[in-house]
């Protein structure tokens, strides 16, 4: 569980990136943090594993104040995958890259071996075991970065902008993967601008703007409220925009899923046809 209690954070440059944020993320939840560029999303999630410490207020991870424990200790619980994989890859082989964190945490060699194999498998990287990470494509490098964090099996997983530059197939794989994590009762927090991706996953959405949380709730509710979204420079997903236009026919306005939308339209259409007959 992550508890953020009235946190303020100011960078040394004087930018007040967080201005009183309170948030509770329970175990097993899937949360998407959204909001405009510079809203403070990355700053907020960097507090979850202690990379940043609040200037004011507290962040508790499983009851531990992040101020009292080292990043390394917190990292065991909270896995953090950065936006750009090139900011972390440095090893000669993919295998070594994944083992890096396990060595830092002092796992035994035979455990390391088992974990590496497991992580390679999970992300479909087994064939690249002995390849240099620098030889891989962007999408693959991103998966190596993810595997290198998953390897130690953290309870909480944070992904900063996981969909940037990814094609549809890769996004779909990522979605499946997150659902799998959810099934294992892991907490997953993603930071993203990708409205359509969020609409497909339907997580809890936390909306940020100017260092504050401006809305918090399930995706189908938040992503279908244009007035709320506007504050965070977000545009409702396409399906929602269709339904917002169609409210005059008595359609629900909180639809974001293609198939749900299809069923509603069909029902309405069939009912209308029956009337005519």
């Amino acid at each position, binding site marked *: 569980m992550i508890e953020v209690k009235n946190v303020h954070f100011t960078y040394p440059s004087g930018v007040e990136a967080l201005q009183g944020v309170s948030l509770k993320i329970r175990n097993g939840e899937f949360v998407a943090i959204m909001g405009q560029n510079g809203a403070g999303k990355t700053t907020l999630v960097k507090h979850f594993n202690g990379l940043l410490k609040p200037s004011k207020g507290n962040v508790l991870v499983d009851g531990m104040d992040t101020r009292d424990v080292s990043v*390394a200790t917190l*990292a065991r619980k909270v896995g953090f995958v950065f936006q750009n994989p090139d900011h*972390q890859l440095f090893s000669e082989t993919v295998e070594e890259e994944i083992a890096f964190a396990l060595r830092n945490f002092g796992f035994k060699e035979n455990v390391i071996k088992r974990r590496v194999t497991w992580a390679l498998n999970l992300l479909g990287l087994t064939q690249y075991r002995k390849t240099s990470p620098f030889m891989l494509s962007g999408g693959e490098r991103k998966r190596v970065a993810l595997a290198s964090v998953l390897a130690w099996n953290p309870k909480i997983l944070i992904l900063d902008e996981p969909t940037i530059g990814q094609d549809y197939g890769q996004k779909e794989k990522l979605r499946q993967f997150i659902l799998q994590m959810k099934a294992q009762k892991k907490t997953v927090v993603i930071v993203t601008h990708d409205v359509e991706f969020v609409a497909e996953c339907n997580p809890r959405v936390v909306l940020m703007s100017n260092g504050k949380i401006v809305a918090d709730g399930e995706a189908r509710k938040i992503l279908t409220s244009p007035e709320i979204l506007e504050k965070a420079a977000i545009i409702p997903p396409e399906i929602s925009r269709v339904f917002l236009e169609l409210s005059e026919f008595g359609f629900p306005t909180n639809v974001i899923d293609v198939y749900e939308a299809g069923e509603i339209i069909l029902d309405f259409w069939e009912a209308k046809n029956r009337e005519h007959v």
Partner: protein
Amino acid sequence: MSMFEGLKFRKVSSPIHDLDPRVKFFYVIAMFAVAVMYMELLPLIVLFLIQVPLVTMAKVTKQWIKSMRGAAFFASIIFFTNFIFSYLYQGQQALPSILEYSMAMTLRFIVLVESFSIFFLTTSPDHLGLALEKSHVPYEFCFAFTTAVRFVPVLAEEAQTIMDAQKARGLELEKGNILKRVRNYIPILIPLIVNAIRRSLELAEAMESRAWGATKNRTNLYELKLRRGDYILALLTVVMLVLAVYARWHIPIPRIMEIFPWKASR
């Protein structure tokens, strides 16, 4: 860090900002020369004070104070080393003159920082690059200069991100003996280098795409023209130089403690 903070250019419009960088640079060099000429406290105080109006005219007082505060640390080091060494050589009797001498050495440093910070605070690196170009420095070098200024903060931020990313994977930089500690930096250095290379490739690509090297006769959006203010500053600087040189050889410079005898008589 804060001393460099004080050297960071901010766009403000003021008569000092409008001056030609070449003339300002001439002024800085002249200041440097004069400051080095004198070992006495009095003229250095004068040098320090005559620059203060420039700072207020340039409307950069706040940043300037910041850079001076940043320099304070080095200044105190200079003061104490001078003081201690002179003391060791000359002993207790000469204490007041040692004190004055150490203060003069410190002030000399401060005067240098003062004039450099006026220069950097009021000269946009763009204009500086242009001035280099006009002084027949090859364009490639000038471009490299402005690009370096542009990318230093970017690289610093990137280094921080990389450090964070590795810490998030359990890297503890301060762990182990000296050798281990040095090795701890490998996971930070490699991504930093790889990214710098990637970045420079992308930059090169973008430059090529914008007709880099199309003609030898490159033009420039900005132009440097000497204006009235430039002539005035150049003239003042020359006058100051002449006076300083003259005074150095022809006027005996009193010590402060000679002016204020109460100090000496103690």
